[in-house]
């Protein structure tokens, strides 16, 4: 169960610094999983530590490719079945993330270049129930929002794996291996694949609408207060989730064909940020908060009352969430030009306090809603990390 320990390369340090400045996610603190870059130039050998107090793949800087797979437990699956499944997955994930083949891996060569692979295990209400444990009230469908057009085929699930790597082949191999090993315990409910562009020099991830996305993410120093569950962040428990977090997965279709109809100025007004560099329309730097009170020469608010940044923003710093989305671009149905959007993923210690108020503000009045439609939704509990000698899900199954 060795974890390769390699020194942070100069490039990794530079990356960490600039990503932090852009407000994106970096796991650089404490017991969090920390990306370790190989000293060699070969990015395929990069590994992200699996063992630790928290699972990797949450505050880990997002890799280029990701897949989310939700499973339904087979009928009769109980705590013992979960214990065995989690033992299998713990072993395989420990191997794969270290660049070693799975135990019964039929394509062992595909495991050798993990390219920053992380696999994150989360449970839905069905798995908690199967474990014989009380299901937390928030672990279930989100409140219905007026903008939702949810489809069953993208919603719900008893178990979830989030598999991310800079190499898409690695993602596919891990997905197949982990799904094969689970076949007697669970069936695949849905799979959502996503991608992110490699970050350019400006370190600003963009979505398929061309917008700079994720600039308001909490800094690493805030992760303990905003992301990880603990007696401090979530005093009411449950304690089996301490060290874990809550996860929202929303499939948000982008109406790119009607988005094409509006001009650049209107697009910027919808968001409240400049398209070219993501800076607020009221000026300042990318990472600066927009000046919501600023007015133009005519006395009109520079940031539209219904602009996305105004609706998404909160004065309550404790309400912020950690966004870790991926883009999707699937073959369109007959007669349509595009089927694209965002696999929205967010992590927050307290779902009801952090996510729900934000989503409600956006659902009520957000200019962006005209061009975005939530078509899938699921809530999961990300289990705490597995330290050396531990198995994932241990706290749930004791």
């Amino acid at each position, binding site marked *: 169960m060795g974890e390769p320990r390699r020194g942070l390369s100069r490039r990794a340090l530079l990356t960490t610094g600039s990503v932090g400045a852009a407000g994106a996610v970096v796991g650089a603190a404490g017991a969090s999983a920390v990306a370790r870059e190989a000293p060699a130039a070969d990015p395929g050998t990069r590994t992200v530590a699996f063992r630790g107090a928290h699972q990797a793949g949450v505050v880990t800087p997002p890799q280029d490719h990701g897949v989310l797979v939700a499973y339904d437990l087979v009928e009769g699956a109980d705590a013992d*079945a979960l214990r*065995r499944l989690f*033992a*299998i997955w713990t072993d395989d994930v420990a191997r794969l993330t270290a660049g070693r083949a799975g*135990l*019964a891996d039929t394509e062992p060569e595909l495991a050798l270049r993990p390219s920053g692979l992380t696999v994150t295990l989360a449970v839905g209400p069905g798995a908690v129930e199967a474990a014989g444990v009380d299901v937390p009230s928030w672990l279930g469908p989100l409140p219905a929002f007026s903008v939702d057009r949810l489809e069953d085929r993208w919603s719900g699930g008893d178990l979830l794996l989030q598999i991310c790597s800079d190499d898409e082949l690695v993602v596919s191999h891990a997905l197949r291996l982990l799904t*094969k*090993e689970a076949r*007697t315990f669970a069936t695949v409910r849905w799979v959502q694949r996503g991608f992110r562009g490699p970050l350019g020099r400006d370190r600003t991830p963009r979505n398929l609408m061309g917008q700079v996305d994720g600039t308001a993410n909490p800094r690493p120093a805030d992760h303990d207060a905003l992301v990880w569950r603990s007696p401090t962040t979530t005093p009411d428990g449950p304690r089996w989730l301490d060290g874990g977090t809550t996860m929202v997965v929303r499939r948000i279709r982008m109406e790119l064909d009607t988005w094409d109809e509006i001009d650049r100025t209107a697009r910027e007004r919808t968001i409240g940020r400049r398209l070219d560099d993501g800076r607020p329309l009221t000026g300042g730097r990318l990472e600066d908060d927009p000046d919501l009170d600023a007015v133009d020469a005519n006395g009109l608010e520079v940031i539209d009352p219904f602009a996305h940044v105004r609706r998404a923003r909160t004065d309550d710093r404790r309400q912020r969430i950690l966004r870790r989305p991926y883009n999707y671009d699937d073959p369109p149905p007959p007669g349509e030009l595009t089927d694209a959007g965002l696999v929205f993923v967010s992590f927050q210690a307290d779902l009801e306090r952090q996510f729900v108020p934000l989503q409600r503000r956006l659902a009520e009045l957000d200019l962006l809603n005209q061009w975005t439609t939530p078509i899938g939704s699921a809530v999961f509990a990300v289990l705490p990390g597995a330290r050396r000698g531990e198995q994932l899900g241990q706290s749930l199954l004791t």
Partner: protein
Amino acid sequence: MKRLTTLLLLAATTVGLTACGSSSDADPATEASTVSVQDPWVKAADSGMTAAFGTFRNAADHDVTIVSATTDGVAGRVELHEMATDEDGQMVMRQKKGGIVVPAGKTHTLEPGGDHIMLMDLTRPVEPGQDVRVTVRFSDDSTMSFTAPARSFAGAEEDYEGGTDHGDMEHGDMDHGDHG
């Protein structure tokens, strides 16, 4: 005398390196004490027969031979098997005469399509994620035990030349349609 000292030192080192999940006899002079096993696993199965795999490493300067194996009650009968070509040119598995040799200073891997430890007449299902305790016996009568976790596996469906009681090696309801 010098040779014996070297051998003892070597044996002591290999015991220290023994992979997790395995244990060897304390006597450093035995064959078992020079052998370790890495990544052992068993194919999950509902009933009938299945197989155990893994990589055996022999740190001694002489070959050692596994002559038999047992489990902790999971299998009514355990045989050491190899894959070979029969007179019709078909790959079949059959008992490995003389046992499985782990060469001096080298490894020998038991894997689907190759040598394996055949667990027969299963007394209960071997469910994925369960551990099976396997004990192998060497030609000097020393033994080594290790824990082999069970995994779902679609392969290792080889035909057994000697067997007439070929049970269902596949767990679950999947039907591969190649059982006699």
